């Protein structure tokens, strides 16, 4: 501790678990927006990732509430948010936004998209499995051309509703922080927008990593056209995200409100590694340069001609670095916002504990859980487009 903190500020209110919450919802929104791009705007190239992105969004969505619940003083009362929500509270709406997104958007979209396959799996299998898939179809086993057209039409509509919903879901998480006028580090109209674009970046990066890994582990060839497109999207989204972050930064610096002194101190000391090194340098600038040079984002085929294998490695590295960068963004927002006193006279420190409900172990567990769920989902609803013809979908950019 350095300087003066109000007595009640000696403990941080929101810990590592609350860093996870915007991080995970960001991944959900980002993965979903990527999937929607393919569907609504008909981006054929990224089609191999469409279902994978949907399932990823679902897997992370199912986990999104856990860090929040684990953090509550009285988790057993959490249902009160639904029973007697305070309509003026930004947080109260979370339950509804979440339920809407999970129930109405994600599940329905996945159902429409998979119905034909589920019917097929139901017809092909026997015993328990047969009944399981029958249950998943909800009894709708008509696969006539008309029925499939209906699926497609409604699936499309749901996607169209889904895009603003995904924006809402994550923009809203940004609003939870951005609307706190007591906290100069959080309070910013740009917060929801910055959250949204960083979410899109993280979602694309995650799907890119998952697509590459799952393809490699299934011993298939990576579809380079698809990968190229993902890398391009990643580059563009990252540019927008970085511009917004910079705008926010410059705006604060230029306005130089009374909090500027303590906030600069905080960035120089407490947040140097996580903000300057991890978020800006490793998570943004280096990937931007790497993607800019090698992908087709700025120049067809990239400024640097590199072999596809090397390019794959570069994209994978970039995506992982970006992922670390986005996690740092969440950390810098959530933890950074609590490292300085609201008296603007002091800084405190946050030490992550290893064990315990708010500790590192639980956090890592909560980060792995969606991957386990995804693994199960992929087993139940295989998302691959290259199943029967392992080698036909390759192409080079």
């Amino acid at each position, binding site marked *: 501790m350095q*300087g*003066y903190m*109000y*007595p*009640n*500020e*000696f*403990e941080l*209110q*929101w810990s590592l678990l609350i860093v996870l919450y915007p991080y995970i919802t960001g991944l959900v929104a980002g993965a979903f927006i990527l999937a929607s791009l393919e569907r609504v705007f008909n981006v054929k190239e990224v089609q191999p990732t469409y279902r994978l992105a949907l399932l990823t969004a679902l897997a992370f969505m199912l986990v999104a509430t856990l860090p*929040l619940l684990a*953090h*509550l*003083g*009285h*988790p057993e*009362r*959490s249902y*009160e*948010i639904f029973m*007697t*929500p*305070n309509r*003026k*509270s*930004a*947080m*109260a709406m*979370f339950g509804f936004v979440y339920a809407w997104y999970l129930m109405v958007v994600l599940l329905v979209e996945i159902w429409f998209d998979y119905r034909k396959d589920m019917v097929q799996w139901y017809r092909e299998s026997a015993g328990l499995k047969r009944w399981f898939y029958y249950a998943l179809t909800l009894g709708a086993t008509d696969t006539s051309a008309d029925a499939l057209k209906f699926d497609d039409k409604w699936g499309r509509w749901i996607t169209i509703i889904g895009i603003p919903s995904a924006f809402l879901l994550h923009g809203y998480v940004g609003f*939870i922080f951005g609307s*706190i*006028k*007591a*906290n100069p580090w959080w309070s910013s109209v740009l917060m929801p927008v910055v959250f949204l674009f960083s979410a899109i970046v993280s979602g694309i990066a995650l799907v890119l990593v998952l697509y590459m890994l799952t393809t490699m582990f299934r011993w298939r060839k990576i579809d380079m056209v698809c990968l190229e497109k993902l890398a391009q999207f990643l580059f563009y989204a990252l540019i927008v995200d970085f511009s917004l972050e910079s705008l926010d930064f410059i705006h604060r610096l230029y306005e130089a409100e009374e909090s500027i002194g303590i906030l600069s101190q905080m960035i120089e000391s407490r947040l140097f590694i996580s903000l300057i090194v991890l978020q800006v340098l490793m998570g943004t600038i280096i990937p931007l340069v790497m993607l800019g040079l090698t992908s087709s984002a700025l120049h067809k085929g990239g400024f640097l001609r590199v072999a596809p294998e090397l390019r794959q490695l570069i994209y994978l590295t970039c995506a992982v670095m970006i992922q670390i960068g986005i996690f740092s963004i969440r950390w810098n927002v959530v933890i950074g*916002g*609590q490292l300085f*006193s*609201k*008296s*603007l*006279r002091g800084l405190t420190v946050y030490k992550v504990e290893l064990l315990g409900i708010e500790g590192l172990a639980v956090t890592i567990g909560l980060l792995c859980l969606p991957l386990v769920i995804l693994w199960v989902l992929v087993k139940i609803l295989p998302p691959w487009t290259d199943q029967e013809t392992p080698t036909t979908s390759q192409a080079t950019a």
Partner: protein
Amino acid sequence: MTEADDQAISNQDAPHNRDPDRREFLNEMLAVCGAAAPVFFGIVRVPVQTDEYDASDHHYGMGIDVNKCIGCGRCVQACTIENDVPEEPHFTNTWVERYIIKTDGEVMVDSPDAGMHGFPRTGDEGAILKTFFVPKLCNHCEEAPCVQVCPVGATFTTEDGVVLVDEEYCIGCRYCIQACPYGARYLHPEKHVAGKCTFCYHRLVEGLVPACVEVCPTQARIFGAVEGRPTPLAQFMRFNTIQVLKPHLNTQPKVFYANLDGEVR
């Protein structure tokens, strides 16, 4: 002084009927506030009280005269005892800050143990321009951000203008603690619900003043209804230049400071 205040309190007519459907919470709150006494005692007493005490008759606030505070910390002690605030780890409903402003403009602020045990001499302060003490507590804001953000409505404003937490209802999300610009809230380490100053609501309904006001040896804290001439608070506000903390945030605090230095935030 207490008597005078009692008079003032019961004489006031300042109905603020902002949250009538929270009446039942209020009743529960009364029971909860009585927790220091045996539970059955609280249950027996509460109904009798609500009959006599009409919340719509009052609208409370507090005045603090910075020049009068000597930094003895009696208020903090009294509050801790009266409201069962756990001493370890040290959270607090009210605290006293010491400001030391040096001739070169450097400002040193501290509040060891919330000022509960007074203030030790600091070593080498150099040339001091001025020094003073500032008692702080929940401002019972008229436009309270903590009330706005509470997802379940567990934090609420009573009809008489006091911001309270319903301990049976709070889910412990800590959003209100983040939203309070003044550091007035904490998560109660044993009850796992938001904790804060209640203006000693359990005392108010009996016609008493908050414990901190009662024990202050210099009458640096003045309590009463905000409006109307006869109350000590109204007098205080009339004869002093009044300032509130962080006015730019438009929380409309109801703790009013006289002789407040610009360095205090």
